[in-house]
């Protein structure tokens, strides 16, 4: 029996094969144990969205809604209107692009207290362009009332979940699952709207979110070898983007890079540029991201290199901008 189970394991679950904790799933269950109004909906992808933990512990508050994202969004809106706090789970691409009008009309416009939880952001899936969310930030940013968050990794997720719970309104979170263990001392804070300096610098600033924060830190090391001292800033809240720290750092450096696991159109890069424009900050800016092109199904490392989104590209783009 055990052998059969092993044999039939779900390859999309891959990252959990070494019993790495479900950091998001555990954070949600902790929350739900102290508040009965927290409910979970899932569009047929419970294990890869870690909502299977919730399903097991709180079966009467878990709604398996099937492969029907449009309906799922409407259901969540209705539940929120009754006082529930629905966390809706799917892959980033399906929860945003597939149900965009439903989110606009039933979540963003009425400001219903719904938390959209997406996995597989950007090109971080081998399942191909159908599953790659390259425009989800752009779509969600464009909606009034919507808050858009991408934690740098599992180290921030517990704090993210607690903060979005306290925020009464619609939120979209895109996240990667853990592929390793995290120690308690690695955990990081998160506040909606706040940026986090991961590395101090002075010559150039690299603003990034999600897994690109790690790539940016690697790039900063390479830059350091060239005598270039780069800031690395984790911009985990893409909307509302309002931290004056961004202006201060760009005023100091003048040069900055944005690095995002998303199309270069409508994402973090555009968000920061328009924030600086509104604040009359002068700058030189280059974007690292998916350069207005569809990707393909392959490993993340391969795609990050091929589409010039890994640390080497951040490094090269930084050198090009400064020279």
């Amino acid at each position, binding site marked *: 029996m055990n052998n059969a189970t092993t044999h039939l394991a779900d390859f999309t679950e891959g990252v959990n094969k070494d019993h790495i904790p479900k950091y998001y799933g555990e954070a949600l269950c902790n929350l739900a144990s102290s508040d009965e109004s927290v409910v979970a909906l899932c569009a047929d992808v419970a294990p890869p969205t870690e909502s299977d933990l919730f399903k097991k512990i709180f079966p009467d508050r878990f709604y398996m809604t099937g492969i029907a994202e449009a309906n799922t969004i409407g259901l969540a809106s209705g539940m929120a209107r*009754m006082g529930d706090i629905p966390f809706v789970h799917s892959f980033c691409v399906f929860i945003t692009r597939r149900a965009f009008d439903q989110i606009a009309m039933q979540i963003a416009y009425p400001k219903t207290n719904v938390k959209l939880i997406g996995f597989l952001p950007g090109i971080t899936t081998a399942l191909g362009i159908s599953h790659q969310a390259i425009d989800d930030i752009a779509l969600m940013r464009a909606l009034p009332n919507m808050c858009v968050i991408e934690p740098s990794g599992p180290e921030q997720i517990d704090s993210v979940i607690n903060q979005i719970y306290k925020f009464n309104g619609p939120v979209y979170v895109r996240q990667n699952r853990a592929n390793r263990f995290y120690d308690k001392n690695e955990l990081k804070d998160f506040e909606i709207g706040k940026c986090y300096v991961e590395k101090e610098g002075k010559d150039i600033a690299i603003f990034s979110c999600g897994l690109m924060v790690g790539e940016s830190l690697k790039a900063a090391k390479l830059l350091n070898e060239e005598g270039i001292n780069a800031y690395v800033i984790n911009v985990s809240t893409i909307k509302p983007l309002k931290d004056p720290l961004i202006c201060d750092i760009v005023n100091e450096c003048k040069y900055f890079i944005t690095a995002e696991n998303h199309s270069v159109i409508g994402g973090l890069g555009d968000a920061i540029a328009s924030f600086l424009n509104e604040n009359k900050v002068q700058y030189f800016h280059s974007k690292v991201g998916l350069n207005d092109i569809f990707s393909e199904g392959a490993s993340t490392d391969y795609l990050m290199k091929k589409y010039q989104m890994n640390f080497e590209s951040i490094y090269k783009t930084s050198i090009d901008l400064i020279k």
Partner: protein
Amino acid sequence: MEKDLNYLINKANILRKHVIEMVARQGKGYVQQGLGASDLFSVLFFDELKNINIVSNINRDRFFLSTAHNSALFHATMAEKGLINIDSLEDYCLDGSPLEINVSERLGPFVEATCGSLGQGLSVAIGMALSAKRRKLKSRFYVILGDGELQEGQTWEAILSASSWKMDNLCLVVDYNNMQVEGSVDQVMSLEPLIDKFLSFGWNTISCNGNKITELLDSFNKARNCSNRPSVIIAKTLVGKGVDFLEGQLSHNLTFPQEIAKKALISLENFYE
């Protein structure tokens, strides 16, 4: 019963008068749909829905107008229920007024969702009904869906889920007036056999003449007494009902100048005599 019936017929008549006057005032609004569904609204709001005008009551019944463009009729009904000021009907479709041409929740908390982007109302209602079931509330959830809306894929996602979850606190009413923007629903994209479709999806399926008060009362009674399944009332309505020269005229966006409205009011009086 005789008295109740006359009361509901009279209410439907009042709603029809409002619709004609409201649409004629600005020359904007949906008159054919309003006249067609007045009997349905009369039965729903003045007989079926419980505590609908006590918005502080969590156990109140809820109503969703997925066909948000049937707004003249909806606003008139809200005024007759005392949920909005009757004088505000004069502001219908005026710039700045919350009485918009597509019903918006700007109007008040009794608008349970802003629809208008067709096919969405049923999903929201099911979400509320699921929450109510979990909280053991007595509320029932009523949705008016247009026939044309059933061409939206999302409605079938919702229909599938409601029977899967045995939502017996849910009552869907299909306002089957056989009219959409491009003409008759039959010709644009036929829904038939619609009864069979709902039956095969596991719904308690009731069909009636949506302009006959007695049939509507009977249908809602059957829906209310059904357990373990959601109910649908397929209510066949006649667009323009009550105004002889408008009955059956397929016009989604009918222009409605004052002189036509005057004739319509006279025709309506004759209809009810």
